[in-house]
């Protein structure tokens, strides 16, 4: 799974989270910040995103502890690293 595919999954999962909240989808770019930006999600929504990403990628980049990320691209990178 390449970076584009992982970003595609991130977009799809965030869309689902927003739809469940009754909100319109938001187009994510590589630089989009998850919290404190224009995406209306909280830390628990972000937690769901991580759980769902682990399910679709089969990768758990946090297996050995928490790793920080701010943007979509940084998060996608963790799942790429995790595959190595």
């Amino acid at each position, binding site marked *: 799974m390449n970076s584009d595919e992982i970003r595609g999954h991130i977009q799809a999962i965030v869309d689902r989270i927003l*739809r*469940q*909240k*009754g909100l319109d989808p938001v187009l994510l770019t590589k630089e989009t910040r998850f919290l404190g930006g224009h995406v209306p999600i909280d*830390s*628990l929504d972000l*937690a*769901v995103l*991580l759980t*769902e990403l682990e399910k679709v990628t089969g990768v758990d980049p946090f297996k050995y502890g928490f790793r920080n990320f701010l943007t979509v691209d940084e998060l996608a990178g963790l799942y790429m690293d995790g595959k190595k």
Partner: protein
Amino acid sequence: MDRRCTILECLTPADRAVVIQDGRAVRALELQDRAERLRCLINQHSWQRVALRTERADTVIVALAASQGCSCDVLLLRDDYSADDPVWSAWQAEALLDDEFAVRRAFPGSKAEGSGCVLLTTSGTTGRPKVAAHSIEVLASRVTKEKLRTDTARWLLTFHPASYAGLQVILTILFTRAELIAFVRPNVSDLLKAAQTEQPTHVSATPTFWRSLLIASSHLDAKMEFRQITIGGEAVDQSTLDQLSRTFSTARITHIYASTEAGALFSVSDKRAGFPAAWMDIGVEGVKLRIREGILEILSPRAMKGYVGELSSKNQADDGWLISGDLVEIVGDRVLFRGRIDNIINVGGAKVMPEEVEAVLLQHEAVREAMVFGQRNPLVGAIVCADIVLSPGFDGEEVRTSIYSHASQRLEAHKLPRVLRFVTAIGTNAAGKKVRLI
């Protein structure tokens, strides 16, 4: 009810059908004969403690009748344990019998000193079950306080016959001369079918079972007429009580608070969740109640004598009160159950009781059953997830936003189930309780 009546004396008249076991009427005479045979076997071997592995209500009745008045303990087992399982050295049974009273295993080194107790396994979901010792007289004491009824009650057994709740139903039918409909390893579908075809008048079951029955009853042809609906095994929420009350408007609806360790404590019949807060001060049915650190503690005349093979008990306070593990809260004139302390989900350091979240979800018209659980998460420790069975006619994707919105208006952010999964059924264990995902 005459308190001096023994189980054997309850097995009269001889031709009375006591149990309809898997469709076959088992009459009092047959149960008496089998009890005599078991008693002879126990005497012949001078057993002090014997284990009986059974799924059958008729066998449990026989075991109760045979053990009453003799010094041998009868350990009723719901599960199989291999010969080298450490449970055997902890429980010190001398033999393991099957339904035909054939000796399946013998443990000649056992050193139990029997005292004529019924030994029951607890329904814990993890690790080795504990074994609680009860005397038959105490087990039946709440039942025998009721007046002898010679009516035509037909009870449907939804609980395992070797569980505390199952035994309460069995003792009730014995002392009230009612009839019991029982099946070996029934699943929910079997029981729902029996609830229609066998026309039981009295049913005791978990809230999870009752919600399953409500789901099914909306598309059943046969009308079910219950005189008594008893709810136990799990705390019941107001939505479930209201739905049962609407669907079975003529039935008496009672929820019972009991546990294998504390015994049958009290029943509540006003169709309101929880129990009157006044009972905290004045007690109820001989039971004293107190709340310590949010957990209900109990002093009960119907408590077990103790655990078998356990050196210490985390369930008992220093002064002998039993720590129920049930989180409670006083709201107005009511004490409400908020969940089991061992079910708590820790979301970023904040505690979430699955039962509280389930009660909110069940208020939504589209939700017929819900099971809330925590899913491990690297960011916040755990997130709250819910498996939901929808009411007929609702589509998951169409109501997802509505259910989420309903919950978000009533729950704090950390308690809000972020993952909603729509499923066709919620798993239950042998005790009829929801199998919680941990």
